[in-house]
C-alpha cells in the first residue's frame, strides 16, 4: 500500500467521523468501555450466575438453579453479621465526619499557599502500604502495645485496656484507613464556598453557630455526602481491618465472603452474599443521595 492510499484511507476515516460525530465519541470511549465490560461487568455476571447455583460436596459448582443461597442470608447468624457491619460502618462514617469536617474546614480556610502543603501532609501516611499500616495499629493497640504500656508504666491503669481484638479496634482501624476519603471531598466543598454568603448570614443576625447550620453546612453538604459514601461503602465491605484488628467474634460481611470463597469453598453462597451486600450498598447510596439532593 502506498503512502497516498494510506492518506486517502485516513482521510476517509476522518470524513466518516465528520459525517457521523457519534463514531468519534465511540472511538474515544471504546478503550474504557472494553476494559469495564471484560474486567468488571463480565466477572460480576459470573458471580451473579454462581449465586443461583449449588455447591457440590468437594466445593465444585453444581449447575442447578435455586434460591437457597439467598434464603440462607436470613439465618440469624448472618443477619447479625450484617447488622454489626452496618453498625461499625455507620460509626466509622460518623467518627470520620466529626473529625474530618472540622479538619477540612480548618485546612480550606488557611491562606492558599498553605493549603497544598496541608493536603500533602494529610496524604503522606497513605503512601505506606495499607497492610503495613494496619499491622502498625496492632502494635499500638494490643495489650502489650504502645498505649497500654504507656498507661501501665505511668500507673494510670492496673491492667491493660481492651483496645484490641474487638469492634473498637476495627472502628479505629477503619477511621484511620478512610479518613482522607472524608476530608478531601469536604475540603473541596468548603474551599469552593463563597464566604461572602457567611458574612451575609452574620449580617442578617445569624451568630456563628446559626450561620454554620443555615448556610455553611447546607452548602457543603454535597462534600459531606460524597465523603460519607466514600467511607461507608469500603467500611461496610471491609475485610483486612476486621481480620487483623478484630477478634474472633468481630466478624464483618467481608470476612464471611472471604471465608466462603477461600475456606468453606462455597462459591454460590459467597456470591449470593456479595450480591446482597452490593444491593444494600446501592440502596444506602440512593437513599443518601436523595436526602442530600433534596436540600441542595
Amino acid at each position, binding site marked *: 500500500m502506498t503512502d497516498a492510499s494510506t492518506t486517502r484511507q485516513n482521510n476517509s476515516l476522518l470524513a466518516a467521523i465528520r459525517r457521523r460525530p457519534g463514531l468519534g465519541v465511540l472511538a474515544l470511549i471504546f478503550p474504557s468501555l472494553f476494559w469495564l465490560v471484560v474486567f468488571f461487568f463480565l466477572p460480576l455476571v459470573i458471580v451473579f450466575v454462581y449465586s443461583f447455583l449449588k455447591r457440590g460436596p468437594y466445593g465444585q459448582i453444581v449447575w442447578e438453579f435455586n434460591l437457597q443461597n439467598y434464603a440462607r442470608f436470613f439465618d440469624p447468624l448472618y443477619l447479625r453479621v450484617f447488622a454489626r457491619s452496618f453498625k461499625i460502618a455507620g460509626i466509622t462514617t460518623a467518627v470520620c465526619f466529626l473529625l474530618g469536617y472540622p479538619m477540612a474546614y480548618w485546612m480550606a480556610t488557611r491562606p492558599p499557599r498553605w493549603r497544598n502543603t496541608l493536603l500533602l501532609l494529610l496524604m503522606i501516611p497513605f503512601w505506606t502500604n495499607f497492610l503495613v499500616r494496619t499491622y502498625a495499629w496492632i502494635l499500638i493497640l494490643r495489650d502489650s502495645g504502645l498505649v497500654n504500656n504507656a498507661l501501665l508504666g505511668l500507673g494510670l491503669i492496673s491492667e491493660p485496656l481492651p483496645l484490641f481484638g474487638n469492634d473498637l479496634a476495627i472502628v479505629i482501624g477503619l477511621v484511620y484507613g478512610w479518613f482522607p476519603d472524608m476530608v478531601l471531598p469536604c475540603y473541596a466543598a468548603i474551599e469552593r464556598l463563597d464566604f*461572602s454568603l457567611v*458574612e*451575609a448570614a452574620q*449580617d*442578617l*443576625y445569624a451568630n456563628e453557630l446559626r*450561620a454554620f447550620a443555615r448556610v455553611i453546612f*447546607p*452548602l457543603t453538604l454535597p462534600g459531606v455526602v460524597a465523603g460519607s459514601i466514600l467511607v461507608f461503602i469500603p467500611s461496610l465491605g471491609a475485610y483486612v481491618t476486621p481480620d487483623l484488628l478484630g477478634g474472633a467474634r468481630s466478624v464483618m460481611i467481608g470476612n464471611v465472603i472471604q471465608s466462603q470463597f477461600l475456606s468453606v469453598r462455597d462459591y454460590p453462597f459467597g456470591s449470593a452474599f456479595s450480591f446482597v451486600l452490593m444491593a444494600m450498598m446501592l440502596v444506602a447510596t440512593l437513599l443518601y443521595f436523595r436526602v442530600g439532593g433534596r436540600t441542595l
Partner: protein
Amino acid sequence: MALSNAIEIRNVVKRFPGPGGASDAAVVAVDHVSLEIRDGEFFSLLGPSGCGKTTTLRMIAGFEHPTEGEILIHGRPMGLTPPYQRNTNMVFQNYALFPHMTVGRNVAFGLQMKKVSKDAIERRVQEALAMVRLPDFGPRRPNQLSGGQQQRIALARALVNRPELLLLDEPLGALDLKLRKEMQIELKNLQKEVGITFIYVTHDQEEALTMSDRIAVMHQGKVLQVGSPTGIYERPNCRFVADFIGETNFLSGVVDGQDGDVVTVLAGDGLPIIVEAEGSYARGTQVTVAVRPEKIRLLPNPLKGSQNSFPCQVDQVVYVGTDTRFLVRLPGDIALTVRAQNVISTPDPSGYYSEGGGPVHAIWPSDAGRLLTD
C-alpha cells in the same frame, strides 16, 4: 432625632498584617478617618479601588474592627460588637443571595434569625418584595433571576429588617450601564421613601454625584474631602479630588499678587490667571489653578474686565454627541481642554473653531477656577 448622627467615626485606623505574615510591615487600609453621617442621609464613600472605602464600610458592619479609634452608631460605641448584634444591614457587591434558598426564604432570613412571628414574617416579606417591584418572586431561586432582579432581592433582604443603617458595597457594579442608571434613581427614591440612612460605597463618581446627599472622597486610606455633590465638584480642596471627580484642567504657576479675594497666578512663562480664593497667599507660592473644561468658553473676540481671556490655537476638535471637546493651546504652550455643549446641531459652520482655525479666545471668569496649593 432629626439632625442627630446616625454614625460617628472617630479617628479610625485599620491596619492589616502584611502579605508576608506578622513579620511583614502592616498595610494601612484606613488612616485616621473621622466622619459624621447624619440620620436619614444618603452618604457615599467615593474613591479608587484600594482607597479604604470598603474597609470603612466593613468596619461599620462589624466584619472588621478598627485597630485604633472608635465607631458609634446612634451614639453607641460599637467596640467589638459582632455583625449579628448590629442593627445594620449590608447589600453586597455580588449580592450574596443564598443559592440554596428561595427568594422568599432569602428575604425572610433576617426576620427568622430575629425570631419575628411567622405571620409577621410572611407579611413583611411580601411588603419588601412589593417594594422592590418583584411581588411574585418569592418561590423562585436566586439563580433563576437576572442581575438586576438579584440586586433588588438583595435590597429587599436588607430593608425588610428595617435597619438603622443600610450599607451598600458597590451594589450596581455588576449591572450594565442602562440598568445601572435606572437603579440609581430607584435607589435614591427608595431611600427617600424608607428614610433609612444609606452608606454607599462606589468608585463611580457620576453614581455618587447622582444619588448622594453628601460624599466623602477617599484616597490611600484618608478622607480628603467631605461635602455635597456640588461642593465636591465645584469646590474641590485638593488636586486629587479635582482630578478624580470629573474632568479638570490643571494650570500650575506661582502667586504674583492678591487683591482682596482675587489672586493672580503666573502660569507657564508668565500668563496671568486670575482666580478667586479664600485666605491669603504669599507672593511666590507654588499653586495650581483647576478649571473645569465646561466653564471655559471659546469666543472670536477677547473680553475685557474681570475675566481670564487668552488668545489660543485650536489643536483638536472631538465631537462627543452632547458636547464638543476642544484641545487648545494658550500662549506659553499651555494645553487646555474646553467643553462646549452642542446647543446648535452644527457647532461651527464657518470652520472658525475647526482644527487650525481661529485664532479664538479662551475665556473664563475668575470664580470658575479653584486655587489649589498641593
